[in-house]
């Protein structure tokens, strides 16, 4: 596969490590009253669609960017690649 890195252009997926569902960006609040349940769901119950999937890749043999890649799990077609930091920045983060 070829991942079109937003900063570096097309790169062979062999340069990357895969983590999984991009919902791993949405780490729950540890103060939440149901933090245990929420962390359980966050870590263990991930999206696993047959179709479009937003997922995290790490450019290990490159610039060490984490990327959010939108890829179809049935065809492997990639429709969007973003820097994960940009995606995370857009979220309302708690300290």
């Amino acid at each position, binding site marked *: 596969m070829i991942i079109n890195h937003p900063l570096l252009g097309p790169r062979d997926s062999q340069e990357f490590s895969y983590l999984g569902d991009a919902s791993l960006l949405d780490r729950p609040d540890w103060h939440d009253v149901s933090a*245990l349940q929420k962390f359980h769901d966050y870590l263990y119950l991930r999206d696993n669609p047959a179709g479009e999937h937003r997922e995290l890749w790490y450019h290990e043999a490159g610039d060490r*960017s984490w990327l959010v890649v939108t890829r179809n799990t049935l065809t492997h077609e990639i429709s969007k690649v973003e820097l994960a930091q940009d995606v995370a920045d857009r979220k309302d983060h708690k300290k």
Partner: protein
Amino acid sequence: MTQLNRLNGGLISRGSPLNFTFDGKEYAGYQGDTLASALLANGVRLMGRSFKYHRPRGVIASGSEEPNALVELRTRGRQEPNTRATVTELFGGLSARSQNRFPSLKHDFMAINDRLSNFLSAGFYYKTFMWPAPLWEKLYEPIIRKAAGLGSVSLDPDPDTYEHGYLHCDLLIVGSGPAGLAAALTAARAGARVVLAEEDFEMGGRLIAESSSFVNQSGAEWVAGVLEELGALPNVRLMKRATVHGAYDHGTYGVVERVADHLAEPPAGTPRQIHWRIYARKAVLCAGATERPIAFENNDRPGIMLAGAVRAYVNRWAAAPAQTVAVFTNNDDGHRTAKDLLAKDVNVSAVIDVRHDAPDVDGAELFKGAQVVDSTGKLGLESVKLRLSNGEIRTIDCGALAVSGGWNPNVHLTCHQRGRPIWDDEIAAFVPDTKLPVGLSVAGAANGVFSTAAALKTGMKTAKKALLDLDIQAPTVALPEAEDSAMNLKPFWFVKEGRGRAWLDYQNDVTVKDVRLAHQEGYKSPEHLKRYTTLGMATDQGKTANVLGLAVMSEMTGASIPETGTTIFRPPYTPIALGTLAGSTTGRHLAPTRKTPSHVWAQELGAEFVEAGNWLRARWFKKPGEKTWQETVNREVTTVRSRVGLCDVSTLGKIDVQGTDAAEFLNKVYANAFAKLPVGKTRYGLMLREDGIVYDDGTAARLAEDHFVVTTTTANAVLVYRNMEFARQCLWPELDVQLISTTEAWAQYAVAGPRSRDLLRKIVDAEFDISNEAFPFMACGEITVCGGFKARLFRISFSGELAYEIAVPRRYGDALIRALMAAGEEFGVAPYGTEALDVLRIEKGHAIGNELNGTTTALNLGLGKMVNRKKDCIGQVLSTREELADPEGLRLVGFKPVNRTDKIVGGAHLMNKDEPTDIKNDQGYITSAGFSATLGHSIAIGFLKNGSGRIGELVRAVNPLQESEIEVEVVSAHFVDPEGDRLRA
């Protein structure tokens, strides 16, 4: 030597005769021959035996689809079983042997199977060999295994080398027949970067196999002209002997280039084959089509061949398959074969055409509406039996029969991304689906367009369209006037007459009867059919058999062929040597070898090295006179405990953490607190996974308010860095912190032992006070050594002794270790390796990978209190889960053998003294064990249920795997200096 069946003409180099042997017998051929064409020219029809019935077999095809003519090529480490004679270029001295026969090809004892064929029907083995049960493995299976298989390997290592290559292009063209060459010309003239890959050793495809592709010139002439033009262009790469074997994601194609297979052995410095990954923006599949046979009784005798292959042998290789040839066809293609044979003065004894409206033939007897119903001949065809349209039976003498049942487009690559071919009634064959791999289009016969003129035209048009998508305007290429005739095919798959066997899959011996039986037993889906009968599972992957099998099944079910289904093709298009896929990263080069800056120094001292991941680390430094490694390790341990030792710890992961929020960041990634760590101090850090399991441990040294240096274990250096980048970029992007891995940037040495400070004082520049008061336990700082060289000093201890770790930029590593050794001489310094390091840490109860095995918690390790509950950190929340917080759970403790001469082994399980050895009574396990030179006996650490509450108890360490069991005493894991006085000294 006479070449009995050699004709005039052809594309062989008669000026370059070559000698070769087959089954030990010498033959002659020419440069440009394949092994198959040369054997045919020499009058050899018998080339192999079939898999199951050991039927005598000859070549049926002229390309990579060949199921029959498989040989063992070359000898010793270069022996290649199952090599197709049809794609083996002849070279001088070639030696080939037939396979799967005993004692000889002509007299094969296993041919008894053919007599027993009625008992060996499809899937018979699923129904028997079950009683008595033990006999399967002892008797039946060994016999079956020995009988099965085809060729054999020599068991000598392959002496040749292989490489991987990478290419990028605008347009990859797969196949160099009329469509491929037209596409290549179009793209080349447009200035696009073109790769033209051809599996054959000559470009041209069918153009060099046919006699009348063009009106005004021969195929070979036109091909030569085109190649001359293409070859002169810098934007074109012509790759012959290059098979595109797979279409992978996003325009990546796998290609095998056979660089040296046409030579006796590769020239020095040349790989045998190269595995290319071609990254193509667009690709055109021009892979042509494969002819299919017609099934009739005994249609597998040597001499019965595909009609198109016969033309290829006659026209390209000037080899007649026999002196007298008959033709059996359901389309006009067969007539072409007769014409070409006659043109070369080969006797054509009959043209048998199933069509009642077949066109006339000049020079041969034509039987319209007739069928071949049987054949005779022991080791080669002698005659065929016909049923004429009036029902009359006629026998025709012939040494070869050219059969044409129509052509199947080579759709293989179009299926590699799960595309399913669709049925085309016009040509009675599957053509590519419209849903193709992204960037791939199909032209010519591969797309079901069979005439030369149409192939040329679609080749050009398809290339133009593909290039247009890349914003490249391609010119219209003037194409030569070419043959443009229709096939006029009447679908006809198998002769229904006769009670004998009619072959579909030649190699695996699957016959029409087998398909019938599969249908009768309910194995009707194409996949069930394939798996039950083994249809299409042989080395040719059913290139000539699959559609025929489906046709027979559709006849049984009454459904049409497309309703019956299709099987899709998977990579590779043709089989690929393991070594080619492996490339050069094999053996010692399977993974990179990482060496520390002082590797040479350690080598000079006679260190033995051990793999630590990809690193090589010194295991021990044996001195003259030391008889066993244990003796060496004991000395090294004792040196550290009594004097001073040096250990290379450069392999530890090192991460530089900088930024105003650096401390806050470490607070999040470590379970224990870091916010209040003062500058100039180091702290042990425990890292959890988000699931609350311990991930790694290390130290973090605060060099400045906004600057930490973090270490990780050797094994986890890459992973911890990855996770920290994840935390930084994805979880807490608002923190002002930057990370960089500096593992390779610093050489680092442990200086450990009561004299370590004395030693360091001789190295560290005088302005830095390293007294216990000024530089106490866990202190850190940036210093200079040896007169102004920058270094970092950490007062940390893995051994439990007064100890330091000193780091310098890697280029000074070798100099520093030598300086340390020289400075330490007066204190009795000695280097120590990983074994002594291991003993020292077990004596102190420090956990490493054996204990941090991915299932243990801080609580298990006795470090529960380190998990700070008052802050958010990775793993904090989930570490509170019921099972992970079990107060009665496993705890890390130490063990001493009750009988001090006993040896405890890692991996032993722990059982209570008074309970039977049973998994239900399992109390835990030993993680690390070693001989404590300090205590003079074996010690171990491990996990014991509720272990911290059981100090002093006696348990059993059982090792039924090696039939041993010893009694051990549960003790604190801190065997040496439990109060930690030494490291604070």
